[in-house]
């Protein structure tokens, strides 16, 4: 298969970027999108050109490292991560636009690679529980209702790839923060810090320059872990309750 690529090239965070045209020739239909870029990069390095920089790691749809916005859709067409997109999804001769995740809070590094460490800082602000380490306690001593266990598991499926931010027209990180706040807030171990967690994570998110949720649900539509936007409603009420408690506590 042959494709015309329009790829965002940017030397570093400060220099302006632009789209450059590339021809992807003789691509096997069973190649993944990232493998297609590998093939293009092979020919670029053969011609002593700078290869296209992009993020990837496990290439099994698990780790959340790959990014890319393909034809305006974070992670490209279909559910799942970029590494799970195969070239057979496209038609021979297609023009494909490839861009990095765009958000003020995700600053560019090079080409299609952006700095997503803002998510790490949100986790550092409260996405954990403070427990004494040691041997695992007896599981049955801490009962968890089945419904809560299922919901918590669903929220914990978030791989923190940042596609929700990339898809959101306002670069809001609400789906990510909602998933992280909910998966701990639904379990007994997370109750002690439930209020402070919601407050600290939301404020860290705001301080980092993520936008505000306007209920577009673009995030839910593209999330490779299929996190439901109803977790955002849960975060909204957790945050409001925590703020009320903060205001009333002397």
């Amino acid at each position, binding site marked *: 298969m042959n494709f015309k690529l*329009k790829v965002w090239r940017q030397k570093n*965070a*400060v220099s302006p970027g632009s*789209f450059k045209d590339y021809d992807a020739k003789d691509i096997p239909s069973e190649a993944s999108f990232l493998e297609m870029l590998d093939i293009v990069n092979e020919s670029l390095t053969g011609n002593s050109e700078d290869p296209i920089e992009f993020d990837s790691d496990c290439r099994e749809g698990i780790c959340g490292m790959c990014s890319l*916005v393909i*034809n*305006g*859709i*974070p992670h490209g067409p279909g559910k799942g991560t970029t590494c799970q997109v195969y070239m057979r999804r496209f038609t021979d001769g297609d023009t494909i*636009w490839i*861009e990095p995740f*765009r*958000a*003020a*809070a995700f*600053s*560019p*590094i090079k080409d299609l690679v952006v*700095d*997503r*460490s*803002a998510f790490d800082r949100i986790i550092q602000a409260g996405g954990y529980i403070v427990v004494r380490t040691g041997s695992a306690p007896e599981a049955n001593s801490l009962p968890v209702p089945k419904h809560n266990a299922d919901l918590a598991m669903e929220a914990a499926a978030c791989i923190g790839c940042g596609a929700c931010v990339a*898809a*959101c*027209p*306002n*670069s*809001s990180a*609400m789906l990510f923060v909602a998933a992280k706040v909910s998966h701990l807030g639904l379990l007994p171990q997370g109750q002690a810090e439930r209020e402070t967690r919601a407050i600290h994570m*939301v*404020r860290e998110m*705001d*301080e*980092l*320059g*993520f*936008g*505000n*949720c*306007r*209920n*577009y*649900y*673009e995030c839910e*539509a*593209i999330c490779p872990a299929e996190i*439901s*936007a*109803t977790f*955002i*409603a*849960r*975060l*909204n*009420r957790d*945050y*409001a309750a925590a*703020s009320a408690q*903060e*205001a009333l506590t002397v």
Partner: protein
Amino acid sequence: MSVASPSTAPVRVFSKNPFIAFYQSSIGKKYVVAVTALILILYVLGHLAGNLQIFIGPDRINAYAKLLHDLGPILWVVRIFLLAAFVIHIVATIQLAHENRLAKPQKYAVPGYQRSSTAARTMLVSGVIVFCFVVYHLLQFTFEVTDPRYHQLRDSLGRHDVYRMLILGFRHPLISLFYIVGLFLLTNHLSHGLASVVQTLGINNRKTANFVASGGQTLAWVVFAGYVSIPVTILLGIIK
């Protein structure tokens, strides 16, 4: 990935006062928008119920108008409360929109919207036009400055003849058309806004999500049908 790169993100700093800090946060500001929206939605529904009394007859709607005016100071308390909700709703939305613009400095070359509705993406535009519509509506029927005859209209009991005023106003096809367009945009605003209020206030969950989304749209179109029925029936000469 610890590469020191300059972020273009604006810096938000939170106040020590929990009330101010709540408003400064994204969710806090959205709560304020949602609560004021709820007040305005209740008003839109109440106003509709009041207006539909035109179909019962001139006596009924004129009596209703007199009842409201006889409330005196209470009417002004309600008016100031509604005006405050309206202003706060707009101010908080402008602040949110400004922050959102800063958060997404560059759009994608190819827009790849998957889920969001046109109504959702045009909330600011529909909001601005609804604002203009409300201003004209108040000038016409509350302050009565668009037509000097409105002041003098009295019914047989000496009450202000609201019934006649509506008929005189909506008999003009252009004015009626403007109302229908204004209401259509209000409907667009509500079709995303009603469900958004529920989501933002955090009373949504996966059992209710679909009902809330479709219920919000249905209610928005019910509001449209209810309000539009008045200029349309006057234009068609059904109400004279």
